């Protein structure tokens, strides 16, 4: 298992800031969908409860590294440094969005952050990430390519073809599997098969291709950060691909087809005393919510006081609110724009 490194006060504050930013931004996305008619007309996916995984991974990356992600990409883009305004604008398809409204919630792409594709096709990004790594090898740079994906991807053929070649050619790629349906007692270790995967341990599959792997508790911010730092530096040193499984317990609000903010927006009191939260949330807040667990540890370690956290959250709340206004006030693209950028 991974040795959790010690992180400075600044580093830990920064982690919490990013966690709350993603949490509040995703709440805003849910508000877009539920408070405005037809603003987000189709399906959409939020990252609530998975914040530590994306933040830990992106913290380990250098600015010129590549990141590939999925339909559940908002958190990854923000963790990678995406600005709230353009991200929210893209999610609701406005011209000020990173893709000028092209991609919407499914496909927030931010090449200036090294995020080159967010594929709506399960497994679609696996070969792409390996390909970016292939190009790194050919160009002889020290970059790495990192790809986020859900456990469902292990059911796709593209996954195997990609990891076989990544291993065969020792490509500098970090495979980050966000296994987001794990019972809390299994997060740290133990076998956790999924309903439609026969493998008792997801990591057995990359291991069969001689790809080293690590399993980390996705609710433990610092453990994830440490595991990712190790994995990325291994890959950067030329050790070939590495597979990281972050085990995440699903946020109760994600139980249905569309996400629901049980009891409204997240309250900091819930984090500090889960008993004060709605019944359905209490167990998750107590054992599985990365934000609650991290806030409690920061307060316990006297890194931050409750008022510090509240002040930070208030600022983030305001920033998200401004970004949301920016997005809503931004113009929708002109119809004719539909015909642009089919070809370079």
């Amino acid at each position, binding site marked *: 298992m991974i040795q959790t490194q010690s992180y400075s006060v600044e580093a830990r504050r920064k982690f919490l800031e990013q966690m709350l930013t993603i949490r509040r931004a995703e709440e805003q996305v849910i508000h877009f969908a539920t408070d405005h008619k037809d603003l987000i007309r189709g399906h959409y996916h939020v990252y609530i409860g998975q914040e530590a995984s994306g933040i830990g991974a992106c913290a380990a990356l250098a600015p010129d590294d590549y990141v590939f992600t999925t339909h559940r990409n908002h958190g990854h883009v923000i963790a990678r440094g995406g600005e709230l305004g353009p991200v929210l604008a893209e999610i609701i398809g406005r011209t000020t969005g990173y893709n000028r409204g092209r991609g919407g919630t499914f496909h927030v792409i931010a090449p200036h952050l090294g995020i080159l594709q967010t594929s709506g096709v399960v497994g679609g990004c696996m070969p792409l990430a390996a390909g970016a790594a292939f190009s790194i090898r050919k160009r002889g740079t020290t970059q790495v390519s990192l790809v986020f994906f859900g456990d469902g991807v292990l059911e796709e053929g593209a*996954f*195997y*073809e990609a990891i*076989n070649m990544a291993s*065969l050619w020792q490509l500098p790629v970090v495979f980050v599997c966000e296994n987001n349906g794990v019972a809390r007692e299994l997060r740290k270790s133990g076998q956790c098969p999924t309903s439609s995967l*026969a493998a008792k341990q997801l990591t*057995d599959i990359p291991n*069969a291709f001689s790809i080293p792997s690590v399993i980390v508790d996705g609710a433990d911010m610092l453990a994830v950060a440490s595991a990712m730092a190790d994995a990325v530096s291994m890959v950067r040193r030329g050790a070939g691909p590495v597979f990281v499984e972050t085990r995440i317990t699903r946020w109760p609000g994600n139980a249905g087809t569309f996400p629901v903010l049980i009891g409204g927006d997240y309250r900091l009191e819930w984090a500090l005393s889960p008993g004060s939260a709605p019944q359905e949330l209490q167990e998750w807040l107590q054992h599985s919510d990365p934000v609650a667990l991290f806030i409690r540890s920061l307060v316990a370690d006297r890194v931050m006081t409750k008022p510090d956290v509240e002040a930070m959250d208030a600022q983030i709340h305001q920033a998200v609110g401004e970004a949301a206004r920016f997005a809503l006030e931004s113009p929708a693209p002109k119809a004719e724009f539909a015909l642009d950028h089919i070809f370079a």
Partner: protein
Amino acid sequence: MADETDALYRDMLQRMLLIRCFEERVIELCHRKQLEGLVHVGIGQEGVAVGIAAALASGDYLYGTHRSHGHFLARGTDPGRLMAELAGKDTGLCRGRGGSMHIVDADRRLMTATGIVGGTIPLALGTALAAGENGDVVAVYFGDGASNTGSLHECLNMAALWKLPVVLVCENNGYAEFTPMSAHTVVSHVSVHGQPYGIPAQIVDGNDTLAVLEAGRAAVARARGGGGPTIVECLTYRLRGHYVGDPAAYRKAGEVAEWRDKDPVRRFTALLQQRGTLAANEVEAIEAAARARVEDAVSFMTESPWPAPRSVADYVYA
């Protein structure tokens, strides 16, 4: 009991020699341009074909690859109709639609061969899903090349997930088309991929026909008993190129000679003589009989009519 075994072994040897003679004749016909197209022969792999066929019951299903003449003959496909199919005659198994890579003999539950590497593995799973209800088992062949296709992995997962009565027979002949296995994957044995899903593997010397038979029987019994899938990885070698006409320059010097000494036909013959199943002179007789059948097949093929070009659109729809 002994007689039964002897009868079975004798029958297996007859089939092996039939396959060998048939394919040698096919090569000859290709060189003489009497056969054309992309033809793949499995000379040197007869032990696998016959061992697996003998392990299956008549109601069981079998799926092939692009190199399946042997798989079919081992299961009793009529050499004449097979040869006719290779030639594209109207009397061919598929009335000339398929050719060497796409043979089907539905009466013998030889469902299909395919030109797509790994392509029949999902088909076999589906048949297992359906036929399992009647206690039938499905065997499917694939090569080491198919171990790099996503479909094998998707199927290992589903076969294990649903405990399907399927026997995954890997003919590991060391080459994916023209490339040695080591250049294509980091794993040493294809069956390693079954481990994450808890699929047991039997790695056998594919040129030891009895070893294949035993492994095949165990896997079939396990499948029939509801135990789910098994990988039988047969380590073997094709003594000829990837396709007829392939100079096979990519092979290491001495490699072929080394494998010639392990020729499954010769080994099995020697074994049967050793255990007294065959008298010394019997082999010639069996081989002569096989040649005769192949010659009949050739004349059947030659005398058979071509399909009428106007029938070209037949069988696209019911």
